[in-house]
């Protein structure tokens, strides 16, 4: 018995070490590097502890680039996509998992398949379609696409939360004469609030990180999102690493901040019986 516990302990410590090294160290590395002098970033001899400290890269990206324009665009697109996604997916999840109608399994599986539906396949025809209806170069073009990619999985995540709400509560309300609208707004939504929070953050992340469509559907500089702006620096022949790293850190900051506040709902939303 003691021997098995020892083996377990070794396994656990080893995998913990590995996980920290692989999944957390890279973040330490780019954050510290973004404060290093340009010479130290590209130096051939690297040391784990930084030798220099400078704010010049942040100075440059905040006051000498289009960062705030890209940030504004990303925020507008991500928030709008999130709100529309939430409305559509809460409604659909309620229909799918509370009203069990004929054909609901078919809709559920089709949604799972569309979640993973390859965006690239749609890229060319969506470009043509949006060109026809004059949607190119607009926030709405990106919102339409982001909602498409976020909602299927959002519905799947909501399923677990809706299933946790006992049907008896709803039935009791109906017996008391409540309408469906009252039941949804007073019972379902408040009880599923943690689930809705976790789904919101998922939808926000999907829109925040989207690059492919944003790079094709938007050509005007004043409408570009942060990932597209950053990718522009990555693609340059001579990469200004300090500039790029500080941009990368700043572009991740909003999602990380959001995660600080409602991240625990997201994680528990994913882990607490999403499959029951």
């Amino acid at each position, binding site marked *: 018995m003691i021997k*098995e516990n020892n083996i377990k302990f070794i396994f656990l410590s080893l995998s913990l070490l590995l996980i920290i090294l692989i999944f957390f160290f890279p973040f330490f590395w780019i954050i510290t590097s973004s404060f290093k002098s340009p010479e130290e970033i590209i130096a051939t001899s690297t040391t784990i502890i930084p030798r220099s400290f400078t704010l010049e890269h942040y100075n440059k990206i905040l006051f000498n680039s289009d960062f705030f324009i890209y940030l504004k665009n990303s925020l507008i697109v991500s928030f709008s996509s999130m709100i529309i996604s939430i409305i559509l997916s809460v*409604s659909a999840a309620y229909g799918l998992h509370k009203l069990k109608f004929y054909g609901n399994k078919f809709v559920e599986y089709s949604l799972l398949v569309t979640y993973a539906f390859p965006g690239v396949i749609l890229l060319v025809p969506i*470009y043509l379609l949006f060109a026809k209806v004059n949607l190119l170069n607009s926030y709405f073009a990106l919102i339409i696409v982001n909602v498409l990619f976020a909602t299927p999985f959002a519905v799947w995540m909501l399923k677990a939360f809706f299933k946790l709400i006992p049907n008896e509560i709803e039935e009791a309300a109906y017996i008391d004469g409540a309408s469906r609208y009252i039941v949804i707004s007073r019972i379902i939504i408040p009880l599923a609030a943690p689930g809705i929070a976790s789904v919101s953050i998922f939808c926000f992340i999907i829109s925040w990180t989207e690059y492919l469509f944003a790079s094709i559907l938007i050509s005007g500089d004043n409408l570009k999102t942060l990932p597209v702006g950053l990718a522009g620096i990555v693609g340059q022949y001579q990469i200004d690493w300090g500039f790029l790293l500080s941009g990368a850190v700043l572009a991740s900051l909003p999602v990380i901040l959001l995660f600080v506040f409602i991240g625990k709902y997201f994680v528990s939303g994913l882990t607490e019986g999403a499959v029951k």
Partner: protein
Amino acid sequence: MNKLKSFQHPYTRGAVNSVKKNNIEGWLFVSPLVIWICLIILVPIYIAFELSLFNVKIIGTSGKFVGIDNYIKLLGKSKFLNASLNSLYWIIGNAICQTFFAFTIALTINYKFPGKKIMANWIILSFIIPTVVVVVIWKLMLSSSSGVINSVLIDIGLFDEATGFFSSPNKAFISLVLINSWRWSPFLALIILSGLNSINREMYDASKVDGANFIQQFFFITFPNLKSVLFVLGLVGTLLSFNIFDIIWLITKGGPSSATTTLPLLIYETAFTKFRISQAATLSIITSFLLLLFSIIFIKLMAPKEDD
């Protein structure tokens, strides 16, 4: 399946009525999303299908009707074969790596240790940051001239000199698989964790009494009980891996010598750098057909039986 359920409470007219009412109301609640998705997927697919029958080159110009010529030409092209094979290797490579990483993370976090909560919350960091940032991180870490990985590997004596991780076809492919797995594994790990949480703890206790060790527990209790999670991961994970575009494009652009050109990259290249729209549309149609086929077969064979 649902029909059967509705027959479970028969005999009362009220029950039958409410099932009918549920059908209409259920569809009403689902329809806004279904319409949204259908519009944005089916209309473009129709447009792509139409395009695939013509030979349009640059977007906005018109071409002449060529029937199924595009399909015949494409299926015989070595570029298409090469990209299909790359996509296949890509899916397999990612499946292996991500299964390994995701299970390691999930099983580790499932134990009690100090800092478990923080780790469980933040392990997903690599998934919530933009892909472009993932690219920046790994381009810096794996840089041949000043990358920290190279210098560590040289310091501990594994390498004699710095290697370019994206310079040879094989190295580039493997590096990309690892980077992509780095991004997705934590997310998948949390979904696996949800499956682990739903397993009855008593089964482990009972097996311990019978003398099972933790490796046997994994293969005889944990793994079989994760069926429904693994079904979703198998389906969604495969399609999602297939779909990856930005990580590959931003790091290698499909090179060196097309070694990392998967089908999504080929479609993009054909449409937006070679300006052969009809060919790209044809590729899209063939690819969607293949993926649809895969999904149907996968669901038919692997869908867990509903017993709740």
